[in-house]
């Protein structure tokens, strides 16, 4: 690279810094912790910048009401909820149409990896609570839910990682903030991908994109999910590493 080209390149990068100073591919600071709700069978906390979510898992336990039980597999129940003071204007407590839809797509995504067949007639409940919202709450909730399920010892064929990518202020970016979501040209595409077979199980989009732009977003999202998965691994290992070191295999079998 010539000096001039290099200078142009750096100018260009500087021009394209995002409102909070990030580069297009940068996440906000991410914090992940497993086992934060002691009474729950499994739990996790996920923080993407100012977006903060807790997920807790109970089960498998007998299905209530009983007539909804499936004789062949467990029923997965997901509840996504926002605290009234997690957003700018107070949100009325309880489920609304938006949270019902998010609960559904999160459940749909998780059901592609949870081995529900191992627990016929049971239910497994996943509760997700948004403590503070700054865009990307559903992907943070799904990332946390996947960890909480693993922490609860629920069998899963693979893990799920999720992130939102999209377009804001003329460029394709990763992990949008609320400020970026409010940009004139903003398009937000939440994506969830599995860790082993790299399959997409949640994908939503609304806005205006060419197929080429969408392809670029999908590429960025899948690369980002790989990175998120590495962070999920570290968080789970952090909790279980110490426990594992002490147990001797032939004690049990």
């Amino acid at each position, binding site marked *: 690279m010539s000096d001039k080209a290099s200078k142009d390149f750096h100018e260009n990068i500087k021009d394209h810094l995002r409102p909070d100073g990030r580069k297009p591919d940068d996440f906000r600071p991410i914090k992940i912790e497993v086992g934060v709700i002691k009474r729950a069978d499994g739990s996790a906390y996920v923080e993407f910048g100012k977006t903060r979510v807790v997920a807790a898992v109970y089960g498998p336990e007998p299905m209530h009401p009983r007539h909804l039980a499936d004789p062949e597999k467990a029923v997965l129940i997901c509840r996504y909820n926002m605290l009234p003071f997690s957003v700018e204007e107070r949100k009325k407590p309880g489920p609304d149409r938006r949270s019902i*839809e998010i609960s559904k797509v999160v459940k749909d995504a998780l059901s592609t990896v949870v081995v529900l067949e191992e627990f016929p007639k049971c239910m497994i409940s996943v509760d997700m609570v948004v403590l503070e919202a700054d865009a990307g709450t559903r992907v943070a909730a799904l990332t946390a839910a996947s960890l909480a399920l693993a922490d609860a010892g629920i069998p899963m064929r693979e893990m799920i990682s999720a992130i939102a990518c999209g377009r804001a202020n003329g460029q394709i970016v990763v992990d949008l903030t609320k400020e970026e979501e409010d940009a004139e040209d903003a398009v937000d595409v939440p994506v969830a991908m599995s860790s082993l077979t790299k399959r997409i199980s949640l994908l939503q989009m609304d806005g205006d994109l060419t197929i080429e732009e969408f392809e670029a977003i999908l590429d960025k999202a899948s690369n980002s999910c790989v990175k998120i998965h590495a962070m999920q691994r570290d968080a789970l290992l952090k909790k279980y590493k110490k426990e594992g070191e002490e147990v001797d295999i032939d004690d049990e079998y």
Partner: protein
Amino acid sequence: MTSTKLTVEYIKNLLEMGRRLDGRSLNEFREIKVKYGISKKAEGSAEVCVGNTRVVAGVKMEIGEPYPDTPNKGVLVTTAEFLAMAAPEFEPGLPGEDAIELARVVDRGIREGNAIDMEKLCIVEGEKVWVVFLDIFVLNHDGNLIDAAGMATMAALLDARMPKLTEDYEVDRSELTDPLPIRDIPIPITVRKHNEHLILDTTALEEEVLKGKFTVTTKINGNLCAMQLSDGMAMTKEEVLKAVRLARDTSSRIRENIFGDQLKRVKKQ
């Protein structure tokens, strides 16, 4: 559950060979019929049949307040209900998660596809705007509800004429005036999957076999305006892109077929 395990296996085997129970090819739609003006009381209404699936949609308009962040734009409110008569598994009562999802996916297509010029629906900025109510009812469920609902909604919008506005901002329904300011015709197309095969316009029976769906809504210019992957389907990146292209091409063909006349009108504006 109305199908036996045997039927499920049979349908799967057929799909594996690229065939379907009703003889269609995997990406072939059933016959689509559109009937406009099914209710004279509505500002606009339409019924769309896709095979045996039958959906009606109606447009009503009222005067209301704009959202604070869009003071110069009208408001769009979309609801959907799966009537208990439409299928034995549907129960009366409040819309369930599937009906809510359908309404929201259709709503995002209309809204983000800029189907309506919302700025034209502003009466007094920050105070009074037109509120467009889109109500979708499923009368008979034989699969592919989102696509049928999206087409019915679009047909009802194209059918709609605005009521007259009196001088003191009251709605006078005795006289309908101009058509709604329609700027685009977004059409949702739902793709399902069996192994590596992509399938369009599934019947209710096929949907018992093929859990999971991917809906892609495209505009006249071929741009994407809404997408939703749900119901427990996992696709590779390549499959997603293949499905998006299939949906775009199908959507443009169907738009041409059922909204050919209106398309010219909309394109002119």
